[in-house]
């Protein structure tokens, strides 16, 4: 069991309240996932360069050393440290920075990369996570959150969701995959790298691989229906919005709701009930294998 929440702001006035709105949703899903929590938030775009979130193993990591070394090699605009995460904003090519980090800062792992996305995650109770990362103060266009109840692999920060699946893309998963070991090996041979033995990371790796093969998100998800065996409700964050898809059996719960101000998804209605106007929202349950997506129109 795990809990998923997603919130997409339709009325720009509410963008400043994104964190305030999604924090109670995440909190409400604590019973579904008390082991760890995570959030992907889309905000403060750095369109001409990139934003990369990195995760250090320990809280006492020396971020100033990283800052100095980044400044020497790249056009670093900003480094924002929260707990054991740091969001790096640079006017440099994303792949160059990632390669450089892999080469020179092996003790760091990249949780997200793109122009808008930031991913934070941590072990422990979601309420503590919300507090530590000051989720309520976050503004942005949309966010996905996850509370995890580990059933198939260890409880660590790296095993926590969301998983990055490419630039400005991420995945949260409720369910379990039964063919993840074999699929991981197949994907490794195609060059996909994995950090853990987690099944959801394989789903994320699979989607990254399909996207790198030229699929668009809908095509990648349709291929996933054929190649992933198991139960899943997926929510996939994109630069412009997010998409939701359930497995063909539709075992894992999901509920969606929409008003003029926002669109939301969750594992259960009680998370959506925390949103303003939820009682009068249009509410429905997503059909198995159908892809539902919200997208911001490009201005």
């Amino acid at each position, binding site marked *: 069991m795990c809990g998923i929440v997603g919130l997409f702001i339709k009325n720009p006035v509410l963008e400043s309240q994104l964190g305030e709105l999604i924090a109670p949703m995440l909190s409400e899903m604590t019973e579904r996932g008390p082991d760890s929590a995570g959030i992907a938030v889309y905000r403060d775009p750095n369109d001409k360069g990139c934003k990369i979130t990195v995760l250090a193993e320990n809280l006492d990591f020396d971020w100033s050393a990283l800052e100095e070394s980044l400044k020497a090699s790249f056009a670093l605009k900003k480094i924002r440290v929260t707990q054991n995460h740091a969001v790096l904003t640079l006017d440099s090519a994303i792949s160059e920075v990632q390669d450089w980090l892999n080469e020179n800062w092996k003790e760091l792992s990249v949780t997200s990369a793109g122009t808008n996305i930031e991913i934070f995650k941590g072990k422990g109770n979601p309420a503590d996570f919300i507090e530590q990362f000051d989720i309520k103060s976050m503004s942005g266009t949309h966010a996905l959150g996850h509370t995890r109840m580990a059933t198939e692999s260890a409880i660590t920060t790296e095993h926590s969701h969301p998983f990055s699946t490419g630039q400005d893309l991420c995945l949260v998963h409720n369910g379990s995959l039964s063919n993840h070991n074999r699929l991981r090996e197949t994907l490794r041979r195609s060059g996909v790298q994995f950090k853990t033995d987690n099944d959801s990371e394989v789903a994320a790796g699979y989607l990254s691989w399909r996207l790198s093969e030229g699929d668009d998100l809908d095509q990648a998800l349709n291929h996933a229906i054929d190649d992933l065996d198991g139960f899943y409700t997926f929510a996939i964050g994109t630069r412009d919005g997010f998409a939701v898809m359930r497995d063909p*059996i*539709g075992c894992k*719960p999901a*509920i969606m709701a929409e008003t003029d101000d926002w669109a939301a998804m969750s594992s*259960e*209605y*009680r*998370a*959506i*009930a*925390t949103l303003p106007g939820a*009682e009068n929202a249009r*509410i*429905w*349950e997503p*059909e*198995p294998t159908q892809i539902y997506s919200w997208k911001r129109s490009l201005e």
Partner: protein
Amino acid sequence: MTEINLDNKSVRELNEKLQSASSGDKFSVNNTVGKHALSVGLTTEVNVDINGHVGYYCAGMNQQAKIKINGNAGPGLAENMMSGEVRVTGNASQYAAATAHGGLLVIEGDASSRCGISMKGVNIVVGGNIGHMSAFMAQSGCLVVCGDAGDALGDSIYEAKIYVRGKVKSLGTDCIEKEMRDEHQKELKQLLKQSRMSYGVDEFRRYGSARKLYNFDIDQVDDY
């Protein structure tokens, strides 16, 4: 009418109060915000109006009580109901009335997948559509669908009866369309009346067991 507000009462307090109520007592329950296991295990003829959406397992194991949910219901509504009546004005999620032995469940909106799975005598009337794998291994009772039915309707069905007004996406293994005889028309008419659905019995088709899976048949090994 006793009002119970879940803003200041716990789910346990609610259920204790409802379970110890006397026959004929009336309750209204407010501020449900999708909470789980509301109004479960009632054993007397009480009336409960629940205002708002409810989460998992509402009205589970109900006996005799009349429970109305003004909203949508999450998974496992009226699971293992024994008797009484449960009505939901909106939609119901997965496996509504699973394994239920008796009583009447009315879902005015749509029901999701696995509605009436392993039903054992309950009557279910759905005003809208139902999802896939509904009435899987259904043993007895009636499932009335005023809209359309999803994939694999009545898979491995025993002696439950299914009446569908709209389209059936596909029938499950060993489920077939059957003749609508007088006794079925009578039964259906009664259920539509009881559930306050204003459709004519002529608009419905009946589905049930072909009874081919009752005994092992080597030629049908793939169907087991």
